[in-house]
């Protein structure tokens, strides 16, 4: 079973490596969305530093959503998904392996580039560790919950828009605690509580996603 999961992980990473745009596009999108806020709202440092936490989190969420659409779609379109589901392993192993690669490709780069974005939005430097930690716990949750939606809309025409409709309401708690933790850190307050809750949500998503996405794929 572990071997099967590792094989999927290896295959998906290889696929992305040969098609690097898939990895770079969400990242560019993330930076672009963030860059629009100073243009649209105000370039003033005091205002930007106040909204920075929320802006970064909303942009990270949208970037994740954008890349989620393809999570199962390409495999479904060329028929390999059907073959993978025929493998003598439970479908949740497939889900977990694919979600892990999705996070590696879309979540991790966001975390790595977030200090740069934080500087662009004048987020206080002492809040950057909290930002990175909250993203580290939050983006896997986004990938996991999003996988449920991606599995449900696989094979449905116009799935991208539908996916957004299904998944965004489920993202509400993550964005609340994600951006609150950064805002609290910016004001010099304790962030342990928020981080603990984000971790709890990650564990929770880890529990329901394999079942929900796995059974949705088999429909």
């Amino acid at each position, binding site marked *: 079973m572990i071997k099967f999961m590792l094989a999927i992980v290896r295959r998906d990473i290889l696929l992305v490596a040969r098609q690097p745009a898939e990895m770079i596009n969400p990242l560019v999108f993330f930076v672009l969305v963030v860059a629009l806020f100073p243009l649209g709202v105000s370039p003033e440092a005091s205002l930007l530093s106040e909204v920075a936490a929320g802006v970064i989190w909303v942009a990270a969420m949208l970037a994740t959503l954008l890349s989620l659409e393809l999570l199962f779609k390409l495999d479904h379109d060329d028929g390999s998904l059907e073959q993978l589901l025929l493998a003598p392993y439970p479908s949740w192993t497939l889900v977990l392996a694919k979600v892990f690669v999705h996070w590696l490709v879309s979540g991790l780069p966001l975390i790595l580039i977030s200090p740069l974005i934080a500087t662009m939005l004048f987020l206080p430097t002492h809040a950057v560790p909290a930002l990175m930690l909250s993203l580290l716990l939050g983006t896997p949750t986004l990938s996991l919950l999003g996988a*449920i939606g991606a599995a*449900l*809309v696989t094979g*449905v*025409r*116009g*799935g991208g828009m*539908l996916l957004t*409709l*299904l*998944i*965004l*309401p*489920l993202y*509400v*708690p993550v964005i*609340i*605690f994600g951006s*609150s933790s950064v805002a609290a850190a910016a004001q010099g307050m304790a962030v342990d509580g928020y981080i603990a*809750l984000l971790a709890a*949500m990650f564990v*929770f998503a880890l529990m*329901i996603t394999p079942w*929900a996405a796995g*059974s*949705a794929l088999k*429909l």
Partner: protein
Amino acid sequence: MTQSIWRMPRWFHQMGSPKWFYDFGGILQPWFAVVAFVLLTWGVVWGLAYAPADYQQGNSFRIMYVHVPAAILSQSIFLGMAVAGAIGLIWKMKLAFMVARSCIAIGATFTIIALLTGAIWGKPTWGAYWVWDARLTSTLVLLFLYAGVMALNQAISERQVAGKATAILAIVGTINIPIIKYSVEWWNTLHQSSSFTLTSKPSMPADMYLPLLLTVLGSYCLFALVVLMRTRTQILQTQSGTSWLAQHRDITGA
């Protein structure tokens, strides 16, 4: 082994038969209609005309007799939809998916009513139609969840697949509702606490809360009535080729 745990009595499986549900629902339907009409009329007239005015809010509180039932129903229906979906998934009961499908639009309607009456009530009491308060926000998110379930149900043309997909989403949504509720509560709260709790005495005089109880119960009956009507319509649509329906007195007119 799993079979022995999940075995259910015969009446339970009987309930999954479209023919049985169609006939039994047909018997129940007029009763729900009468009870809903009586309870709603009684509760609304009592609440709007005879209940004492609030010492602070004057007469504006009377919108409560629409607002509170709608808000309660909006949440119960989502739960009911998820339970019906789970029954459909576990016992492979097509009829449960039809019931879940019937719930979507009714629940969304009650949610919209709750939001609109809340906005109208908020203006004289809080001075604003909308505030980003926890309850308002979680109700808005609930409406989005309904929208997602509805969109998914419509996007998949094959009913059986649509039913299963909707059930999964409804279950995931239901598990998330408490989390969403508490997360927005910690985030921001202005709304007053629940009108009813099972454990403590109501904070309102009997003349105020009894009409409310009547409208809540009446709304549940109204919901049951509409679910029966919608589910029976779906039975007619999906079973149109079967022999029991062709010989049914509703079709032959005999």
